[in-house]
């Protein structure tokens, strides 16, 4: 049971991180490879603030959210919008956005690496204390419980918003056919900015919770999660909210089982091998659709 709890906790972190990426990729066609840098830098900013003043969990979470959202907006306005304006076609724009995201991510990474000398950083000076709750043989920290709740609530909220709200419908229509959506009066730029802000906020939030949960992260931690989130989205199916959750918990389960039952050196090989096998039979992902691919 403890292992199952570990899977749920780890899966929640993957979900929280991947949810924002999935949202932008599945709707406004932006595969943001700067997502890992946003995740890290939000946490890094909170760390810097904590060096100057004591803060509790709510304010640190808020700080992570705001920094993440602002960074994401900046990337959208300064980089991705410029790429889209200048690209000769959609496919070129997608490729350039991918490369642009990698390029943009180097800046916050370099700042954090320079400041920390690549040493880990954490929130040990925060007033928030991570406590462990014991229920029989089961142990869970308050921050792990919070991460699970936040991930599930945000996932449900994002799925419901996309399916039920007018704005969600508008966003999905952009994902299906941006030009037709524009002809129907949908403001693509405004929707893209909102989506990027939400996505960045999620990255910032997950960065803060992840740092609290692990005690410390490094400037490079976001890169490791980026690859895993990418795998989660592909496995579940691009644009599918159900798919990204499936991918996150599937990957967490595969990693935990392999790590605890075999040698750790097989974790990536087995986990990603399983994903590859699934994709052989379901190329568009477990919950992805080959024709209309949005949510």
């Amino acid at each position: 049971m403890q292992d199952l709890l570990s899977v749920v906790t780890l899966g929640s972190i993957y979900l929280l991180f991947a949810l924002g990426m999935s949202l932008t990729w599945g709707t406004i066609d932006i595969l943001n490879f700067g997502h890992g840098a946003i995740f890290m830098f939000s946490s890094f900013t909170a760390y810097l603030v904590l060096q100057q003043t004591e803060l509790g969990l709510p304010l640190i979470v808020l700080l992570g959210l705001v920094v993440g959202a602002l960074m994401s907006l900046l990337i959208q306005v300064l980089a991705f919008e410029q790429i889209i304006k200048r690209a000769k076609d959609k496919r070129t724009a997608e490729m350039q956005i991918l490369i642009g995201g990698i390029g943009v991510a180097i800046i916050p990474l370099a700042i954090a690496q320079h400041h920390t000398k690549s040493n880990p950083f954490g929130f040990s000076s925060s007033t928030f204390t991570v406590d462990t709750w014991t229920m029989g043989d089961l142990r869970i920290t308050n921050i792990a419980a919070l991460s699970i709740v936040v991930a599930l609530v945000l996932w449900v909220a994002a799925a419901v918003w996309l399916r039920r709200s007018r704005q969600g419908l508008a966003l999905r229509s952009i994902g299906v056919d941006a030009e037709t959506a524009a002809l129907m009066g949908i403001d693509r730029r405004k929707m893209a900015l909102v989506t990027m802000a939400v996505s960045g906020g999620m990255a910032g939030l997950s960065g803060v919770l992840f740092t609290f949960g692990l005690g410390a992260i490094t400037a490079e931690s976001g890169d490791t999660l980026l690859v895993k989130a990418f795998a989660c989205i592909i496995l579940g199916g691009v644009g599918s909210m159900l798919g990204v959750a499936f991918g996150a918990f599937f990957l967490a389960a595969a990693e935990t089982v392999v790590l605890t039952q075999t040698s750790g050196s097989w974790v990536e090989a087995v986990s990603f091998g399983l994903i590859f096998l699934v994709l052989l039979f379901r190329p568009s992902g477990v919950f992805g659709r080959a024709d209309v691919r949005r949510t």
Partner: protein
Amino acid sequence: MIWNARRGGRRKIAVAAIATGVLLSVAACGGSDAPASGEGLPDEIKLVSVNPTTGVVAFAGASANKGYELAVKEINESDLLGGSKIKLEFKDTKSEPQTAASALTSAITDRDVAAVFGSVSSTEAVAMSPLAQKRGMPIIYTQAGSDGVVVGDYTYRATPLMSSYYPIISRFIKEQGYKSVGVMYTSVTPTLQEIGQKTYPQLAKELGFEITKSIATSATTQDFAAPISQLLASKPDVVATLQVGASNPTVMTQLRQAGYQGKVLGNSGASAGNLKPAGKAGDGMVWPVDFNYQQNAESSQKFVAAYRAEYGEVPLNYAAEAYDAAYFLARSMAAADSTDREAIKDAMKEEAAKTFDGALGKDLKWENGTLQVPGVMVEYTTEGEKLLYEGAGE
């Protein structure tokens, strides 16, 4: 030892390919015109430190450069080189093997460069060593503990292999009366893997304790809750964790969250301030290391005082190793009375046959191109590192 976290077979092949490519390009450039042997030392001797000061192992590279800088300053102020002055240049590898190989290539083709201080990163060092050996460039590394670094008479490593001094932990295990150990090690790095897979089983055999569980973690493991849960379920008296630097605060935090309050047997990757983010949870980790600023040797304390005066802080092991590496090279150049690379190589061989007192301790000796030291045992507390004992202590 320093390793890049994302290392694997493909990366090694890539590194080998880079090294081979650069090697071929250097070979095509023709030989350098190094100063001839027997002409005496020039007024200015150019040395290059090819180390990462940005990127994932910047903390070690930057610290090593401070050690080189301090030693060069002292050497230039002394009469060791008969009035010749060392000019030390720094090249940042950005923690990238290809950049390291490229910087070394530039140094090799610069006829004024007498020798190079090689990278602390094993990944970078294995890309550099074949070049240095093939093209006859004397190179001294610190850290870089993997195979393929010391590959011939031009290559030296002024850091002992961890497996050579790690067994001093035996005394601690005996004193604490541990009868069982749970081991968790990273499979990313050959050195830590060796400690987990070979050194601990060997110690268990010698000291008669049981290894209740041995778990390997992967390169991308960031959450250790599941392996820790498995480890503690085997009910060991003490936990041993062998992780790269950045993972140590997480492991300590999650061990405490899982209810484990005892000591933790670690490795020197936890030093250099890496445990600080863990706060009080980091208290109680112990590890053997090749240097600690509190060690007693007179030569070590002389170095510590000079370092404090220069930088206003206590030195890390990376700086101490670099300091000794610089002096080793300076003594060799003085003995060669030349900056001819081959003459330096011959002099280094003779110098390596002698013992010396340095920052790392007293009566230090070289074995197969790698420095040997007895090591010290330290314990982490939030107030700072506490020196437990020096050497085997017996």
